Structure formats: C-alpha cells, structure tokens
C-alpha cells in the first residue's frame, strides 16, 4: 500500500496517454462483453442444457419430423424416467422483426421434463385446461408487455393461417441465465388444427435415470428405430441445441476469433504504451535502483501500473456492456436472450488483468535488466 501513491503519480504523469490506454481496455472489454452476450443469445441456452436430458431428432435433419407413435415406444425403453415432445411452430407476431421461438408442446409432460422453468401452479392448470392456451417466458412477456389473459395472434409461416392463443401462464428461469424468451402452445391444439405433418412431432426430449448412462440410452433409442423410415439421432440436449444454433453458422468460433483479435490488438496497444512509458523513465528507474529498490520491486511497481489501467478500463467497459444489456435486446428479436452473466464479466476482467500484467512486465523486465550506470547515462 505504501507504494500506491507512487504508482498513481506515475499513472498521472501523462494523463491523456493514461486515459487513452484505459479507454482501449474499456473499448475491448465492452466489445468482449457484447460478444459474450451475442454468443450466449445465439446458443439459445446451450450452456444451461440439462445434463440428464437427451434430444431425439430425425437422423436426416433437425427440420425433418418424427412419428408421434415413437413417443410411446421411447417411454418403454429402459433407463428412461420421462419424455416429452415439441414441434417448431415458426409463426410471426405482428411483424417479422418481432421474432421469437414458438413451440407446440405436450401440456402433460413438458413441464415435468423442464423442472427448472418455474410456473405458478394455478397458471399451469389454466394452460392445461385451455387447448388454445399458451405460455410465454418472462423476458418475452416484458418485451411485448404481455399479461396473463391477453389474446396473442400469431401468423403461421409453416402452418398457414392466423392462430390466436390465450396467454395462461408466464414462466421464469431458476437461474438468471435460463432463457425465458420462448412461447409454448398446445401440441394437441396444433395437431387437431393443422393440415400438414399430422401425426408427427419435431423432436423428443428424454430424461434419463442416470446421466452417466446417457450414451447407452442414446444408443438404445437409435438402435430401436434403425432401418425404419424415420431413423433417429439421439444426442445430449447440449449437442442438440448447439446444432440448432449452428444452423446459422459456427457462431462460437466466430466470436472466439473476434475476441482473440481484440485481445491480441489490446496487448499490442497497451504493450506499446507501457514500453514508451518505461523507456521515458529508464533514468528514473536507475535512480530508484541506486536508492535500493530491487529489480523485483520495480518490476512489480511497473506491472501494477499496467494492471491498474487494465482494471479501471476493463471494469468501465464491462459495466458499459452490462448497462447496455439492461435496456434489452437492441436488435428487436434477433437476440432474445440478452444477458451478461457475472461469471463472464469476471472472466473478462481476468483476461484484461492478464493482458495488463503482460504488457507491463515485458518492458519492465527490459528496464530492470539495464544496469544502473547505463540507465543513469540515459538521462
């Protein structure tokens, strides 16, 4: 602590340079925060997928259906605790820009398979009792101001016509990162009304007794329907959701690439700045060594300057990103899950601190290796 005033004085030596360097950290971490939000949003909750859930889909493609009759057969296979099914409805609310996912789900079993999504009992019973009922997540309700009792018109793009649903329930996530931006309608209502794809479902979701035996259960299911007209592919829910997200490209790889470029650039910028700052002070560092400051102490002092810059700038950038997320999805529906998790902020800050330490240590190491006599001669 006794060296803190010295460190702060050195940071204040060239205020504009300090400000710009902290600003570069802020900009990089702001971008990092937004990339994390976008990645998470496009993952559609991949990271919160249940470890004990498997998804069963058509082996040919995720958009091909499976027979409704498979459900009963899957339910009888060993090591399966429960199962449910869903269909991608793919409708439009008012305008195509108002995109949000809609699924037709089984009102009896869907909530059992997804216990982490919390719904008031009376609201769920109202949904079960109303074939035209629907459920929306909290984020979605807040986005459009939906309230229980509202009537929500959806224009079908796969199943033609305008469908009207009664909002009977709103669900919340158990954890902040649980996605709550979907809409559920009743499968039996869809099945009764639609004119195409009758007797089919989009996919099944299976809860296994023991997550450690998931691979075995997946093999059993796929073998059960092998050589049929609708062969299945069973995978973990995480893999299934990743496949769903990857329909628009490998977003995670894209984000990682952009993030890596951002941090590499940041190392160059801050490293160059610190190198200039240290080079200007070679003589002062030599004087401090002559007073008895050890090489290690000087290394720590210089690196701490860079770390403080990273901490202040990085925090500002992450807070700005967090603030932006509080205003909700700015794209009007493309990023329905717009949330920056504390763990991601902490990770970003750690990265910034690491970059700061590296960018300070490299020039500081060169400086302390210079002999006192050579350093003093540089005055």
């Amino acid at each position, binding site marked *: 602590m*006794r*060296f803190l*005033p*010295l460190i702060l*004085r*050195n940071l*204040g*030596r060239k205020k504009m340079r300090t400000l710009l360097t902290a600003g570069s950290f802020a900009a990089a971490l702001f971008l990092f925060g937004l990339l994390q939000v976008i990645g998470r949003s496009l993952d559609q909750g991949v990271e919160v997928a249940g470890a004990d859930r498997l998804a069963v889909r058509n082996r040919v493609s995720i958009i091909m259906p499976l027979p409704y009759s498979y459900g009963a057969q899957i339910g009888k296979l060993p090591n399966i605790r429960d199962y449910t099914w869903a269909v991608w409805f793919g409708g439009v609310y008012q305008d195509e820009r108002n995109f949000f996912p809609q699924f037709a789900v089984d009102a009896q079993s869907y909530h059992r398979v997804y216990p982490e999504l919390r719904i008031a009992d009376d609201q769920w019973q109202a949904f079960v009792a109303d074939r035209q009922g629907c459920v929306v997540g909290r984020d979605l309700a807040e986005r459009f101001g939906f309230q229980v009792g509202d009537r929500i018109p959806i224009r079908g793009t796969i199943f033609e016509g305008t469908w009207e649903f009664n909002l009977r329930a709103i669900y919340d996530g158990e954890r902040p990162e649980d996605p709550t931006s979907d809409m559920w309608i009743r499968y039996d209502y869809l099945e009764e009304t639609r004119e195409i794809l009758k007797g089919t479902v989009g996919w099944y979701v299976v809860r296994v007794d023991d997550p450690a035996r998931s691979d075995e259960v997946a093999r059993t299911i796929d073998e059960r329907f092998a050589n049929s007209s609708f062969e299945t592919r069973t995978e973990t829910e995480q893999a299934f959701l990743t496949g769903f997200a990857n329909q628009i490209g490998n977003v995670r790889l894209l984000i990682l690439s952009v993030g890596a470029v951002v941090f590499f650039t940041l190392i160059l910028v801050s490293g160059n700045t610190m190198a200039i700052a240290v080079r200007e002070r070679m*003589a*002062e560092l030599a*004087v*401090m*060594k*002559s*007073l*008895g*400051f*050890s*090489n*290690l*102490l000087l290394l720590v002092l210089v690196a701490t300057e860079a770390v403080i810059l990273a901490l202040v700038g990085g925090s500002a950038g992450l807070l700005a990103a967090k603030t932006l997320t509080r205003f909700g999805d700015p794209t009007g529906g493309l990023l329905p899950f717009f949330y920056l998790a504390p763990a991601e902020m902490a990770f970003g800050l750690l990265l910034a601190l690491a970059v700061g330490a590296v960018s300070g240590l490299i020039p500081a190491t060169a400086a302390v290796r210079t*002999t*006192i*006599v050579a350093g*003093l001669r540089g*005055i």
Partner: protein
Amino acid sequence: MVRVNGGADGGLIRVRGLSKVYRRGEEEIHVLRSLDLDVEAGEFVAFMGPSGSGKTTLLNLIGGLDMPSAGSIRVGGEEIAELRGAALSRWRARHVGFVFQSFNLIPVLDAFDNVELPLLLTRLSRAQRYAHVSAALRLVGLADRIRHYPRQLSGGQEQRVAIARALVSDPQLLLADEPTGDLDRQTSGEIMELVRRLAKEFGKTVLMVTHDPLAAALADTVIHLDKGVLVEVPQGAAPR
C-alpha cells in the same frame, strides 16, 4: 587518513587491486588499474582528474552501482564486490546516499515524496517517515518547500532536495558525483558548504567527484586520478 597505496586495515573503505575494464567490440578499455585506497570514517574526500580518468567509475564501484572487473571493495568490513541483486540493493539502501550532478529527482513527486523514496523500503511507519523527511528537509533549508515539485524549484533547491534524499535514511557514506556541476558559482558555494557540514557536523564520510577546484578545496583530502591511477594531492594544494 586517506591512503592511496594501501596500508594497515581499519578504515571505513578499503579498496585493493581494483580494476575496471570495459569492452568495446574487440577493444578493452582499462578505466581503473589495480587501485588501492583507504578512507577513514568521517572523512571528506574529493576526486579530481580529467574527463575519462575513472573518477565516476570509482565512485560507482564504491557505491555498488557497478561491478569491478577485479579487486576488492570493503565498506564497513563488508565485501561489496561479492554482493549481487537484492543483497546489493539492500546494502545500498542501508549504507549509501547518492547525489548526482543533474539532481535526478522524480518529476511527478514533490520534494517530500522524493525524499521519502528511500524510506519506503524500510519498516518505518507513515508518521516516522514524515518525521525523518521533515528533519532532512529542514537540515537542507527547505522546510518551507516540502510540497513543491522539482519544476517549481531552482537548481540549487533541487540539489538540496537530492541531498536530503541521500541523507534521509542516515547512511554512513555519501557519494556525490559533480554535485555542483549544473549550478552557478554562488549556489555551488551554498551546496558545498552544506556538504562540508554533513561531513564535519554529522560525521558522514563523503566521497565527491568534482572538476571544481573551489569545491575540492573544502575536502579533507583531494585525490587526483589520471588514466585510472590514483595520486594523492597534499592538503591545500588542490590543482587549479
């Protein structure tokens, strides 16, 4: 009593067979050639000689700023030629105060903070550091300038702050390299009077490199260096 050709033990500084060789490509430059030197505690010694004669190199070696190519340097019984790294840093912090020609104050620190720097390496409390720094600045006559930055001080005042910084941890040895080199005649006189007081009233052992015969005349002993060899000049006969 200073001896330049060795003799009995007992001085504060005992240098034997000290050589310093710099290499420039294939060429070897012998800056100091097998010097012997003894300095008693409390003496004020001035080193004179032409540029390149090795005065500053000798001062740097005795102060542990540079490493000898050969020979021994014992200060207060401790062989500093064998000290390295953090041990040498600690030794400098405890035993030596440096005063440089161009003051070498840290520009972003005010007079108080500059003088406090060596004390940051000690276990002294904030209050104790304050007392020591205030006393050092009073001693050099700058009690009313403690919150002034180097750019707000005259050259003479800057050198006084540098002297206060060199003294604040109460080292036995004060090494001054051309302390008046950047000052006008009157200010030089004031600084030299201060240095002389430090030797006479406070018992500091002062080794000073200077080109200024008037400054050297205040020393107890003047030693002339020429081509890396020491020659003691009788008192009162400093070369002009």
